[in-house]
């Protein structure tokens, strides 16, 4: 019997077999590589937290060890700034004094995120790190550069017990991304204001 490779029957069969093979292949690979990818993401998070807190020379190799050494506490907060067991706002304490807070926001094309480190006085920024998924390289993508992130260190975020809006030099040509960064910082600090007030009182 001659095989007709343009019959509907053959086309359906061909497509089905192809899809099944591809699906199995991709599933197996994804499951096999998952642990490696998770580890990379975890390291990335540690590196960003440590960098925000001003710890130098962190890389993928020593991140786990340095994080273990410097991160003295890690807890969740409720609305009033007290530690809680369940769902809450995460805080990482580095070297018993700096509080590192995760941030999430929106850039121009997709999500942006980062960490902000606050000194023990509860009102001075120690450092920040930002990252993004799909901002334009050279414009919005510049938020990941040290040049942009460096300007945040030393800025004040509290005045008379309430958070004040952050001010910084935006990136030329990336107004939307810069606004996104501002909104992200302002929103995050507002959510954490109860906690920041608390550490400020303790610090004084």
């Amino acid at each position, binding site marked *: 019997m001659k095989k007709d*490779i*343009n019959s509907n029957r*053959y*086309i359906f069969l*061909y*497509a089905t077999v*192809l*899809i099944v093979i*591809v699906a199995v*292949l*991709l599933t197996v*690979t*994804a499951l096999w*590589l998952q642990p*490696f*990818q998770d580890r*990379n993401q975890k*390291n*990335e998070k540690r590196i960003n937290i440590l960098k925000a807190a001003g710890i130098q020379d962190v890389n*993928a190799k020593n991140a786990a060890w340095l994080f273990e050494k410097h991160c003295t506490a890690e807890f969740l907060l409720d609305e009033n700034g007290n530690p809680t067991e369940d769902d809450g706002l995460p805080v990482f304490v580095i070297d018993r004094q700096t509080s590192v807070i995760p941030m999430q926001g929106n850039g121009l094309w997709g999500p942006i995120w980062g960490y902000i480190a606050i000194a023990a006085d509860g009102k001075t920024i120690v450092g920040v790190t930002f990252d993004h*998924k*799909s901002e334009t*390289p*050279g414009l919005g993508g510049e938020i990941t550069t040290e040049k942009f992130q460096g300007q945040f260190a030393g800025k004040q975020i509290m005045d008379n017990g309430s958070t004040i809006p952050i001010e910084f030099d935006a990136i030329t040509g990336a107004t939307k991304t810069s606004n996104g960064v501002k909104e992200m910082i302002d929103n995050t600090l507002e959510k954490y204001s109860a906690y920041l007030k608390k550490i400020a009182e303790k610090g004084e």
Partner: protein
Amino acid sequence: MPNVKKLIIEPLRKTNPVTVLVLGICSCLAVTAQLKPALVMGASVTVVTAFSNLIISLLRKGIPSRIRIIVQLVVVATLVILIDQFLKAFAYNVSKQLSVYVGLIITNCIIMGRLEAFALSHGSWESFLDGLGNGLGYSLILVIVAFFRELFGSGTLLGYPIIPSSFYEAGYQNNGLMILPPMALIVVGIIIWIQRTRNPEMQENNQK
């Protein structure tokens, strides 16, 4: 085998996918601000073109012509997803830099172009070499462009400082335009210009 040599060498020069066929320009603009992502992108595209050419060529007698584009897309997409997963697992920083552009390999015209124009009508060994050659031709242009952009835009190569700090003290400054995408287009344009000047037979005769 002269055939092997022809299939690998020709796409580097006279049938270069970027400068002669003008395919794959989009990713050429995006990943050439630095040398390292350009090298990885070039290697990834080379692997994808070579193996998708090989696979399609092996399947070519069984692929129903009515769904051949879909079959090609499935094969290319699978290879790209595999590469993306491997990069995420073993070269995380590079995968972050390339981010969306790895996914965009799927739509790189060079790959579909070679599948349609070559792999569907040639043997598997020849097709593999053709894919390899075209991938290398693409990488070559990527690396040349990235070399100039990183050197003059950031003063480094592969992240290592090249331009001595005494230059900066004397008032030298990195050219910020080099980092931005338009400069990639200009560099590619200059490469095409040089290539055409050196090979007069490539120039169209507009006098007639």
